């Protein structure tokens, strides 16, 4: 049997049909975060901006699950509200990078020649520059907004997708099924869109989740540095930066958003791995 696509060695070993505990937990976390991002106004006990100056820097209690920050704002509510900016940006980055990467990677891998050289040298160039630094410079110097940061990160993330897709396409190009379609007379565009891309789809999905997870951390890093989001906004990176100074009085003001970033990013990774395994075993021939 020749599996056209083999899943890379995965971090989470799952038996088909059964999910490991880790995958289950990750799915719960991801679902929870998405739910918070969508329905935050119905979930939060307090609004994110409400200040209670009589009750600043309170420790965790029943009324404030994770305590309050230096302006008396409820940390727990702010984490829930922060889920939106923590997800939307990375989702757009991952999706945008997938579109660009798939388009460039598929065509470069299939056509070859000068076009491939051009695309791949661009990819090399993008890999040569330190990503976070470029983002900091562009967003910081130009006083950019959240959306400009997202745009910059799309351009910086797309090369990884491009390289992955190009490699996979080159491997498919000389397989009999592609050659057979060429001999039958199916146009290249349709071979790519209708046959090669669906075959590589699991790979793309997994890479998109991976990008998603990385972008959560990158965007949070930017806002931690005060870039992209306005001061006072309920953003995990921003909250982490502001909570830093309050560690002694209410450590949850820093630990809360920190945990939220770490758990969401890790869960996204695990879910992506699990999806890759599921999707790529689906089309596989009988053993």
């Amino acid at each position, binding site marked *: 049997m020749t599996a056209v696509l083999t899943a890379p060695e995965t971090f989470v070993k799952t038996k088909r*049909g*059964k999910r490991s505990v880790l995958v289950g937990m990750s799915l719960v976390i991801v679902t929870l975060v998405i739910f918070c991002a969508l329905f935050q106004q119905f979930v939060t006990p307090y609004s994110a901006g409400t200040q209670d100056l009589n009750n600043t820097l309170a420790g965790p209690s029943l009324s404030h699950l994770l305590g309050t920050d230096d302006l008396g704002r409820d940390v727990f509510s702010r984490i829930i509200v922060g889920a939106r900016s923590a997800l939307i940006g990375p989702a757009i980055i991952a999706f945008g990078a997938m579109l660009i990467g798939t388009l460039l990677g598929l065509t470069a891998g299939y056509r070859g020649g000068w076009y491939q050289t051009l695309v791949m040298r661009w990819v090399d160039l993008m890999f040569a520059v330190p990503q976070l630094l470029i983002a900091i410079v562009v967003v910081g110097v130009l006083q950019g907004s959240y959306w400009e940061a997202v745009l910059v990160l799309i351009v910086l993330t797309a090369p990884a997708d491009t390289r992955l897709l190009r490699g996979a396409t080159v491997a498919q190009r000389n397989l009999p099924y592609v050659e057979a379609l060429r001999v039958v007379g199916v146009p290249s565009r349709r071979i790519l869109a209708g046959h090669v891309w669906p075959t590589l789809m699991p790979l793309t999905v997994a890479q998109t989740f991976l990008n998603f997870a990385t972008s959560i951390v990158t965007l949070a890093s930017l806002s931690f540095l005060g870039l992209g989001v306005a001061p006072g906004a309920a953003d995990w990176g921003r909250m982490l930066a502001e909570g830093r100074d309050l560690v002694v009085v209410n450590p949850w003001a820093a630990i809360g958003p920190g945990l939220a970033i770490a758990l969401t990013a890790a869960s996204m990774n695990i879910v992506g791995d699990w999806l890759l395994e599921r999707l790529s075993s689906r089309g596989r021939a009988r053993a």
Partner: protein
Amino acid sequence: MTGHEKLLEVEGLQITANVDGESRTLVSGINLTVDPGETIAIVGESGSGKSMTARALMGLLPDGVTVRGNVHYEGTQLLPGTRGRRLHKDFAMIFQDPFTMLNPLLPSGRHISETLRDEKGRRLRKPAARAVEIERLAEVGIQDPTVATRYPFELSGGMRQRVGIAATLASNPTLLIADEVTTALDVTTQAEILQLLKRVQRSRNVGMILITHDLSVAFSMADRVYVLYAGQLLEQSPSSRMLIEPLHPYTRGLLDSDPPLDHRAATLYSMPGSVPQASTVLHSCPFAARCAWAIEDCRTAATPLREIGGESGRSSACIRIEEIRGELGLVSEPSTADASGSEVGMSSSGAFLAVNNLRKEFSRGGRRVIALDSVSIEVAAGESVGIVGESGSGKTTLGRSIVGLETPTAGSIHINGVDATNYDALGHGQVAKLRTAVQMAFQDPYSTLSPARAVGPVLREALRLDNPQASNADVAELLKLVGLPASYARRKPAALSGGERQRVALARALARKPNLIVCDEIVSALDVSVQAQILNLLKRLRAELGIGYLFITHDLAVVRQITDRVYVLHRGRLVEHGPTGQVLDAPREEYTRSLVASVPQNTVTLL
């Protein structure tokens, strides 16, 4: 050692795999014995469990696969026993693929001396090791001492297989297990390796278990043959007697589906259907669904192997064998040659396909390799022409050049009057015209269809190139043409067997209504019974649609069945050509003669 002592006795061997949390039986109720110095063969199609059986004896089963039953070796019980290791150090296995069984980073000699130790249990010193290596290589017929220092990639497939055998013999085994050792080799090399194995087995007087799908290999090598089907033994018999009178309908069918080399059969006998999964036929005769003699009793109870009365040393699992024995003997009436079609020849109308002085060079790592050297062939409309050669003969390059997957270095190709030498230089309309003239079918059924797409959309896509209004009904008709039910349109390739995939691939080629199909080894990866089905399909399509074939193959028996004329290629050059029967019966060139002589025949003698 007394005469009755068995070297190996296997009783009630059962192998189960754990798939998706449920256990699935792969092999059940295997009883077999090997006498000292005896060669037995286990014959079966893919999925029969023959390799699993061999691996169970070597302790090489993958994770999640468990084995039950008793194994005795020279009277000592080995199974049930420790799992995860070789059952006994006297067992050794030779593997199928000579290209992956050697470590590419070690010189070939090291594979032999790696496991050897001196009396004190230390590794051999270099000079001593080298001496042993050269001696062992000589035993497998490699006289050149420099081979020991060469790396596997510097050796040919046959040489590697020899090194592999020498390495296997290094530990002085008394039981050799050979798993499809010749399948990946060319016919001429195959014959040499088989002779070598026979010689080694005789001179060392070791027992040998030969695992193969090829009945003729089994008959020419083994003293006794076990026939395995869907995880159960169907027949056991001395090879000479099985060849004359098989005692199971399946064995009969296998013998009849094997295309004969010496004549052309009008239609090949082909068993309907395909091999079932072992776990679904545990409590019935596994062959019942495909058997012409099956009765209700065959489907309701397990059919263990039993001794056949009046014949010592033979057993069959067929419960009706006493009744149907007479009929079984009659089936093999060879339906002899219909020479029809072979007169088509070159008519005055000129060639449909004309290849003239074709030359193709590849550059590999700075070296120039000449794949084709001034090759000229002609194919008339509706004619079936064979291209025969071993690997490296350039036969596949020739086929690929004709459909434009390679661009020739020099020479010309004309198809139906259109210059098809360089597809890239042609206009869109001309290429489209060529696509409806010549199509191609590929060797590997497992990668010839897009894994992510269902059959129906793929066929409809091909149909719509000519007729944008093509409907599901047209797809169904196309499937029917290649003998598949319309419901297959919804299936993905993963849910199809190898033979079914080749049918779909042919259907896709037929969607363009070509006059000629280039068939590149399309049956070589298929089981014998399925191969016969596909060959019959090709014959039928030719009769019904008047399609011609350019049939590329290494298998002389297959080429005999399907082609009118044949070209013999050797190292990129045309050696000989002529009417198929004439070339195979009375080859003019030395190379063709050696090719014909290497084909193992259904005879028990030779070697």
